[in-house]
Each structure stands twice: as C-alpha cells, then as structure tokens.
C-alpha cells in the first residue's frame, strides 16, 4: 500500500428499505490521518452509510475497498477485524448491564477504556454503574471511549457530539485531532458547522442518498456545503426580533428549588411570550431542573408557581394538567419506537382517563397531519418511528405537543441531531409559539442557539443559577465564560 492508497473507499453504494431509497449512489474516500466530515440533511442517508460500512446493514449494491482490497464486511465483527469501528447515532451499550459487563461483552480492554474516559473528561465513572442509570452525555462518551480502546484504523462517529455540552465537545474534538495526527482516519458526522470547521480536513456531502460533493474545509466553505446539502442556498435567517424584557407577573415561577446535591436554591421566572434559555456544562443540574418541572422528580424543597398558584407535581400528568409539557433530551425516553408516527404524535391526546373511549379518527388524523406538516417530518417511513432518521425522530418528539396546543413548553435540547434548515424552522416555530402566548424554557447544548432562539438565558453552574444573560449579549464567548462560572456580574433572576 502506497501512502496515497485510501484507507477506506466506498463507491456507488445503494440501499433500499422496501419502498424507501435510503442510498442511491454514495461514495466516500478517506486516507490515513484524515478527518472527513460526512454531511447531509436529515434523512440524507448518513447513518445508513455508516451502518453499511460497519457491517450492521447489508448494502444492495456498490463496492467497498479497504486499503485497496475489495471487502464484503458481512458483520460488525468483520468490520472490526478490518479496522473499522463505529459510534452509532443512538447509544449502543446495553442499559440493563453494568459498564464492566458491557465491556466484557465487547471484549474491550478495560484499562485503555478507563484511560480514554478520563481523557475525554468524565470523572468518577464506576465500572459497576448500570448503563441505564447514566445520563445520555456520559453514554456517548463511553461509546466513544469503547471505540477508541479497540484501536481502530478508521473511526466512524455518527453525531457523536449532538447530545454533548460544550466542555465535552471540546474534549472530543481535541482527542480526535490528536488521533488523526497519529495516523487514524476519522469519519465525522455532525450538523454543527463550528465543529466541522474546527477539526475536519474535508467534507463529503450527501443529498437524497447520493454523494454530491467533496470539498476541502477552508474558510467560507460553509455556504457551499449548505447549498450542496439542501440543493439550494439557505438564505439569511430571520433576524432575532429584539423584544423588551417582559413585564407583569410571571407565568411560571420557580422559587428556591433544591434537590440533593444536584440543585441548590434555583429560582427563575418565565413569562408568557418569552423564550428563556438554559445554558450549562454537563451535569450542572439541568436534567434535574427539567425533571422536576416535568413532574418526573420531586424536589426536596422549593416552590413551583403557575400563574401565581403554588403547584406540586406527583406525576407528569399533573404537570401536563397545569400546561407544562416536556420534550426529553433522550429520544429513547420520548418515543415508542415500534409504533407509527401517527400514534406517537397522538399519544398525549389519549393519555387522560376521560379519553379512553372511542377515538375521533378524522379529527385526530387532522391534528396529526398538521403537526407532521409543521415539523416537516419525512413521511416516507411513517409506519414505525424506528425507521425514521435520527433527526426526523427528534421532530416527532416535538410535534406531538404541537398537536395538543402548548402553554408552557419545556424543551431539553430539542434540536439534537437536526439539520441546519430544520433548526432554523424550529427556532422560527419556537418564536411563533411564544408570540402566540406560550412560555418556553429551552435548554440547549449548542451555545450558538441561544441568540438565535432565546430572549435571554439563565446559566446553571453547580446546581445554582449563576447568571442571566440577554440574547443581545449572548455571544459564545460570554456564554462559555458564564457556563464555567467565570462571569462575576451580580445575579438577578
């Protein structure tokens, strides 16, 4: 093998699922030491390509060469022997087993794994922890550490960073850059352009299952990539309308919320028509805050007031009855994967006892179609949510609450894994909902979203609100400093 022979070369790969054509003519080339971004809109076929390259799916047609030799890659084990190791879009460790058991199952060397976990910035992981009890961000890091520990030649990362807060993203990018410099090849899927610009050498663009471009990542390539991805330019985003600080009584007020060591004395106020961002590094209490507001966790102390009336939630149904609806960050918690898009969206409408009776099929279909249209859900594989692409699944989790009509929306990282165009649509949608009188609490792991989607943001650090930042001042640098607890302004919640 000369140094110029690609380590991995796929050409003309196609794959159909029944009537759905997921890939029609996909190609991809990567050499030693390269980081190649694989880009494309939701449903373009990125995950399908990764699964084919790593033996989880069989291709219908096309060729795959590894180090110049034709390879069939019939199974994940075969892929691993050939030096190809994936981190799939959905966490792949078994929830009912401990970390150690999972490692043993995959034959992962434990010491290497531990070293990588440390290096990636997860402290204090215990090997006897149950996978199902760990937060999503940690799971993603474990998936990556496991892949790295098997010392692959080619690492395929499918939206590895989509659920990660800034601090962990930085670690991941640093580590893969180092690995590439040491000669590993990395295929990197992400919908976040800043990450691509930071580490990738080239970008391969997929549109509707076809490779439509292969570009060097240089200054200003972003526009070109988007054009290839979408088949048209994106256009300028709607300028964030500057809205005056809300006056009058708060719609949702949280006072002195305390929960073990996770939340200490958290207070915040959310008005009708306001989109309040929540910014935090990994594990600063954001999961617990949303859990409490959604009625999933009961706080030790503190008060929740809705329109001035103190409420206590013993079950999510109580929260919903008070108008608080929750979109969880982990799709696996929110979706019934085996059921149709229709049933998933209609779910909340049937939850209450008084709706156990006959379903108004026509009315329901109307509401569901409405939500599908507003969220622009890919309707080609509606029969089972698990057949949708990751981004489209995410849209379903949000869409179901639109069908109901929203009062207070608790969005936990709602744009996880969603492409640029749809992200814009979701910001627009959130604004629209707010203008119609909804109150939105919006946690995001992507700091750049704050000025685009929110009016202001509270910063959580170590379980407390340490800062409130107006959207106008919310550039990434400021947010980042605040998230690390470095800004010293007074707190005025």
């Amino acid at each position: 093998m000369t140094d110029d022979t690609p380590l991995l070369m796929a050409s003309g790969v196609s794959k159909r699922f029944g009537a759905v054509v997921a890939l029609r003519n996909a190609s991809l080339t990567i050499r030693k030491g390269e980081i190649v971004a694989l880009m494309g809109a939701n449903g373009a076929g990125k995950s399908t390509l990764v699964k084919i390259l790593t033996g989880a799916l069989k291709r219908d047609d096309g060729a795959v060469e590894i180090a110049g030799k034709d390879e069939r890659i019939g199974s994940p084990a075969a892929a691993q022997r050939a030096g190809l190791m994936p981190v799939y879009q959905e966490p792949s460790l078994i929830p009912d087993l401990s970390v150690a058991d999972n490692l043993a199952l995959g034959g992962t060397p434990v010491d290497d794994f531990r070293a990588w976990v440390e290096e990636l910035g997860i402290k204090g992981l215990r090997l006897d922890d149950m996978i199902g009890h760990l937060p999503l961000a940690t799971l993603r890091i474990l998936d990556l550490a496991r892949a790295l520990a098997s010392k692959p030649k080619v690492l395929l990362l499918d939206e590895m960073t989509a659920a990660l807060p800034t601090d962990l993203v930085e670690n991941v990018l640093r580590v893969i850059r180092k690995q590439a410099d040491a000669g590993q090849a990395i295929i990197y899927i992400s919908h976040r352009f800043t990450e691509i610009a930071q580490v990738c050498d080239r970008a391969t663009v997929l549109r509707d299952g076809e490779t439509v471009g292969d570009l060097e990542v240089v200054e200003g390539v972003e526009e070109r990539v988007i054009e290839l991805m979408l088949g048209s330019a994106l256009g300028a985003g709607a300028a964030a309308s500057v809205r005056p600080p809300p006056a009058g009584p708060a719609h949702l007020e949280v006072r002195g919320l305390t929960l073990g060591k996770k939340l200490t004395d958290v207070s915040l106020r959310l008005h009708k028509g306001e989109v309040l961002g929540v910014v935090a590094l990994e594990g600063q209490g954001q999961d617990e805050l949303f859990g409490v507001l959604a009625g999933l966790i009961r706080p030790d102390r503190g008060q929740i007031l809705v329109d001035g009336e103190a409420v206590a939630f013993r079950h999510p149904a109580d929260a919903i009855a008070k108008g608080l609806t929750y979109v969880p960050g982990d799709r696996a918690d929110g979706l019934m994967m085996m059921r149709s898009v229709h049933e998933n969206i209609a779910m909340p409408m049937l939850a209450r006892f008084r709706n156990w009776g006959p379903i108004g099929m026509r009315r329901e279909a109307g509401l569901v179609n409405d939500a599908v249209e507003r969220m622009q859900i890919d309707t080609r594989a509606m029969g089972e949510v698990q057949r949708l692409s990751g981004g489209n699944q995410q849209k379903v989790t949000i869409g179901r609450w639109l069908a109901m009509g929203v009062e207070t929306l608790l969005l936990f990282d709602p744009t996880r894994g969603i492409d640029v165009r749809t992200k814009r649509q979701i910001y627009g949608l959130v604004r629209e909902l707010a203008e119609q009188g909804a109150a939105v609490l919006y946690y995001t792991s992507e700091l750049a979203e704050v000025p685009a989607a929110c009016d202001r943001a509270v910063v959580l650090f170590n379980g407390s609100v340490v800062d409130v930042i107006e959207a106008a001042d919310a550039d990434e640098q400021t947010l980042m400093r605040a998230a690390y607890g470095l800004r010293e302004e007074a707190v005025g919640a």
Partner: protein
Amino acid sequence: MTPQDTASLLVRLGRFLRDNPIFPLIILLLALIATLEFMRPGIVNERWIGNTIKFAIPLAMLAACQTLTMLTGGIDLSASVGATITAFVMATQVPIMGAPLAICIGLVPAILIGLVNGFGVAVCRVHPLIMTLGTGLIATGCLQVYQRFVIASGSVVPDGLGWLGTGRTWGAPNALLLFVPFAIFVLWLQRRTGFGRLLYALGSNETAAKISGVRSWQVYLALYALSGLIAGGAGLLYVGLIKAPSLSLVSPLLLPSVAAAVIGGTSIFGGRGGYGGTIVGALILTVLGTLLTLMQIPEGTRRILFGLIILAVTTIYVRLTNQR
C-alpha cells in the same frame, strides 16, 4: 434467479409479512386444512368446520386475555383459573339461585382475580408472569376449599349455556352469536379507542407513555380486570361445551391460549400484534390438534410434535419478519 434475487425477494416477503402479519397465518391455516383433506378425503365438510369453530372459540376467547395483556408486555396465567372458577361457581350455584344470578355470581371471582393482578402489576410492580401465576395458584386453592362446602348441592349447567356451547343454527355454531360481537369489540377496543392505544404505548415504552401523561396504574388495573372478565366469559362458554364442570376444567387451554397469541404475531415483549392474528392462531392450533389426533399417534409423541410445530412456526415467522 440468482441467489441475490432470491435474497431480496425474501427480504421483501419478510417486510410484507411484517406489515401484514395475518396473511401468512391464513395461508398456513389453509395449508393445514388441505393436508387434512389430503390425508382423509371428505373429512372437511360443513360439520367438521362447525366443530372446529366450536372448539376454537373458547380458546380464542381465552387467548384474548393473553393478547391484550401481552400488548403491554404482560401475560395472564391466571386466565384459565378465572375461567374455571366462573364455570364451577356458576354450575354449583344454579341449583340454589337459578341460572341468571348464578352466572353473575360466577363472574365475580374472575373479576376479583383480575383486579388483584392489576393491583400487583400496577402498584406493587410485580412482574405479570409471577403475579398472575401467584393469583392463579391462590385462586385454585380457594376453589378447592369452596368445593368442599358445595359438594352436597351438586352442579347443573344451564340449558342456555349448553345451547350456546354445542348447539347449531342452520349449521353454524351458536357460539358465534357470542363470539362475533366479542371479537368485533376487542378489535375495536384495540384499534379505535384510547384505551387500546395505551396498551400498545405501555408495551412499547412505558417511560414515553409516562412523559405523555399516562398514569399507567389505571391502565393496568382496568386491563387485568377486563382480562378476568373475559376469562370468566370463556369459562361459561367452555362449560356449555364440555358440560362437566371440574376443578381443572379450563387448565388444558392455558398454554394453547398463550401459543395462539404468539403464533398470531403478538410479541410477548409488548407493543406489537393484535387480536386478528390471535383468532387465526386459535384456529390453527385447533386444526393442528385434529390433524395430530387423526394420525393416531400416541399421546406423548403427539405432544412432542405439537410443541415442535409451534416452535417451528414461531421461529420461521420471527426470522422472516426481522431481516436487516
């Protein structure tokens, strides 16, 4: 045809079967009937069809308990006991209080068993398998105690139930009079009501259902109570067919009722399947039973074959529908 063509044909077939699970079952049923006719020409006539349906109906009713609970990832192993108790209590009470009242009294313990099951599953979070096994054993014990008190009064199966269980009108079994509306009700419940949707929801992802505001305990309680009621109904029909109430009247139907639901394409892990397939499954099992009886093989071998065939059918089915 190249191997690749065959493979993709198989994939497509698998996909089709997965989306329309009832077709292959009907084909299997017809194939079994054809085999039967081939082995014993002339056997498949109106009378035989009537008889087969007559015996399949109580099984299909009991299998409704399994199907509905399996949709949530549960199971109801106390169904056969509930059916037996209803039949036995009813038959022993008829001499004392007359048929209509005895039927109502008979259904009470079956519903109670269901409520206890529901309580255990929903509130105490006991696994349905254990819970229903436990209540089934306890209820069997209670029935034995009860028997000692009523030995003197004797038992009577009301004529009405006999008519329903064994009678025919214009060649069609009268049991259809009860079963057709029942089946329509269950299918409607499962497809067109909020309650039915919630069964699938709980079986697919209980956390998701919870976040959507579903209070699962309500659903479980109602579900297992309903299952108890259905079991009681199946017991009444079955005693009308057999005409001899005993303490183990419906027990032989328990495992076939689970098998009927599984063959019918309902997943024991929940979230997938439905009653349509179960009805065909019950028919398949009944025809299979006749077929094996006809072959005049000893009971032991017959059971082995029965088990093997069920395993084979389910394995093939699962393989076909889970392709990558």
